[in-house]
């Protein structure tokens, strides 16, 4: 029986330690992982908890991330609660198996610390890995600080394992900016946390040898489409379950999460849409802009997949101009967040002036002043009642100003 870990009411944890404690408290049966910067401390801390007697489950050492996710698939199909952690190149190597995990409807939880993809090699934070896994059929939750990395990891088990969902879930936190930044975290006690997550309920476990089942079967033209659409339907219909879990979490902690988070959006004329730690930095920029009389608000999809497009359109109903900020190289088009927010507005008959900004690649610093500049440019579009700034701009990029139209 795992020992209880004595926690203070207020701990000072970085995002990695926060995620590791959430995995420990969920009493995961199998963690299979191959450590990679900047998520290494999640795996390292978890292994330490195991060695010190705070974890009952198994920790499986593997030789690559492909093997890590494969071992997770095996353990989850066998009927266990399963989790792992990764970043960047490790995530990229896992991608093939990510699709397998979701296709087999295995509720694995993966704590991702977002990092740039090579080449050139870079260990710092951006959303390239998150975007790479966008269509893999997983639920993707976004945490902006260590407290949220902890909270959402606990919620991830509840959401993914719910009978109505049964899908794998990632929690995402920005490399270094969250993963290696120590902040105040108010954890639950081990009992409270485990009670919230609940006992794992296996569904069609392979170890139930009296009821043999097949995982990873082949389906061709006759049934592949139906299987994939079923999986898509499960994602599309997971919104109310996610909201239910968030609402129960609020009752327990007082901390409220929403499908779509906003800041000062109610009376706003213009809005910025962005995800991750920069959302919080942008809150300070909004406060400054409002002192100068610019009525600006913020929006962030807390849940990147499934994408709450109607909810986003509803919340942006009254704004005249929107800047969508993507922290990933768009490589030949506009950024994904821009595309999806634009589509959400268009589909709902809304016509805010849309612009796209790329920022923070490979950990490039994005300050309050930088975001304030974007707010001012977006306000120019609102004042002119048409787009007078470039379609796509780049924040804090070296060299002559670059833009695309």
């Amino acid at each position, binding site marked *: 029986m795992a020992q209880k870990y004595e926690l203070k009411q*207020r701990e*000072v944890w970085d995002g990695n330690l926060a995620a590791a404690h959430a995995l420990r408290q969920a009493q995961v049966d199998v963690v299979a992982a191959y450590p990679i910067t900047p998520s290494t401390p999640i795996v390292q801390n978890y292994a330490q908890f195991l060695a010190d007697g705070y974890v009952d489950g198994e920790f499986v050492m593997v030789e690559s991330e492909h093997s890590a996710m494969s071992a997770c698939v095996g353990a989850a199909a066998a009927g266990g609660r399963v989790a792992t952690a990764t970043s960047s190149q490790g995530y990229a190597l896992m991608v093939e198996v990510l699709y397998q995990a979701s296709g087999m409807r295995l509720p694995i939880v993966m704590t991702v610390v977002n990092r740039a993809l090579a080449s050139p090699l870079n260990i710092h934070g951006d959303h390239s890995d998150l975007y790479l896994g966008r269509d893999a059929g997983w639920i993707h939750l976004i945490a902006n600080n260590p407290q949220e990395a902890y909270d959402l990891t606990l919620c991830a088990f509840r959401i993914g394992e719910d009978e109505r969902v049964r899908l794998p879930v990632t929690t995402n936190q920005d490399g270094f900016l969250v993963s290696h930044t120590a902040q105040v975290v108010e954890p639950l006690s081990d009992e409270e946390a485990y009670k919230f997550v609940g006992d794992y309920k296996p569904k069609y476990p392979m170890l139930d040898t009296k009821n043999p089942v097949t995982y990873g079967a082949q389906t061709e033209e006759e049934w592949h489409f139906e299987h994939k659409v079923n999986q898509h339907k499960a994602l599309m219909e997971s919104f109310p379950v996610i909201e239910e879990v968030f609402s129960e979490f609020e009752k327990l902690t007082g901390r409220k999460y929403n499908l779509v988070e906003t800041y000062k959006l109610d009376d706003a004329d213009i809005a910025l849409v962005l995800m991750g730690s920069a959302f919080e930095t942008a809150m300070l920029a909004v406060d400054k802009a409002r002192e100068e009389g610019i009525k600006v608000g913020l929006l962030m999809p807390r849940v990147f997949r499934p994408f709450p497009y109607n909810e986003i359109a509803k919340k942006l109903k009254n704004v005249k101009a929107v800047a969508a900020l993507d922290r990933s190289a768009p490589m030949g088009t506009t950024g994904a967040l821009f595309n999806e927010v634009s589509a959400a507005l268009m589909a709902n008959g809304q016509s805010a002036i849309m612009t796209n900004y790329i920022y923070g690649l490979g950990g490039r610093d994005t300050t309050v002043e930088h975001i304030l500049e974007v707010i001012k440019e977006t306000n120019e579009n609102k004042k002119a009642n048409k787009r007078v700034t470039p379609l796509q701009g780049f924040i804090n990029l070296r060299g002559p100003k670059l833009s695309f139209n």
Partner: protein
Amino acid sequence: MLQIRWHSRAGQGAVTGAKALADVMARTGKYVQAYSVYGAEKRGAPMTAYDKIDDKPILDHSKWMRPDYVLVIDPSLVFQEEIVNNTTDDTVFIVTTHMDKEDLLNVAKHLQGKKVYVIDAIKISQEEIGRAIPNTPMLGAFVKISGIIPFEDFLVSIKDILSKFPQKIIDGNLRAIKRAYEEVK
């Protein structure tokens, strides 16, 4: 918001020092952030670590700051002009050096006109802890100069934070902290 920037070489304990200070201040009810800027980190390479301390949750996740305090824990880094980057006339510098302040300012001209305090944290840590780990003595010096927390309260918290170490290490660190608190000038 109080902002502190540490200048160190990787392996000298600036990250641990920054996190320990954040931990101490969080216990007084403050909100904190402690982080460092990593390159392709190699032992001995110059690096920076940061503390932010405030009465409300800290939202700014950018690395940029205008420090109220600059803590230099490696005696050679005081000669790098980068230590004055983004500082103001009010920024307080506490630097590790074997020199007295006057001699130091004659060679580290970028510190002239700045508020500078000196402490030989390397010597103190070597003598009291047995290794050149100048992070905890720097904390002692910082608590003295900043008056951010009563020294007795600081000692109670830091003792608890160090409690995972062997008694000999804890005692050495506490002696180093107290000496630095007395000797900083």
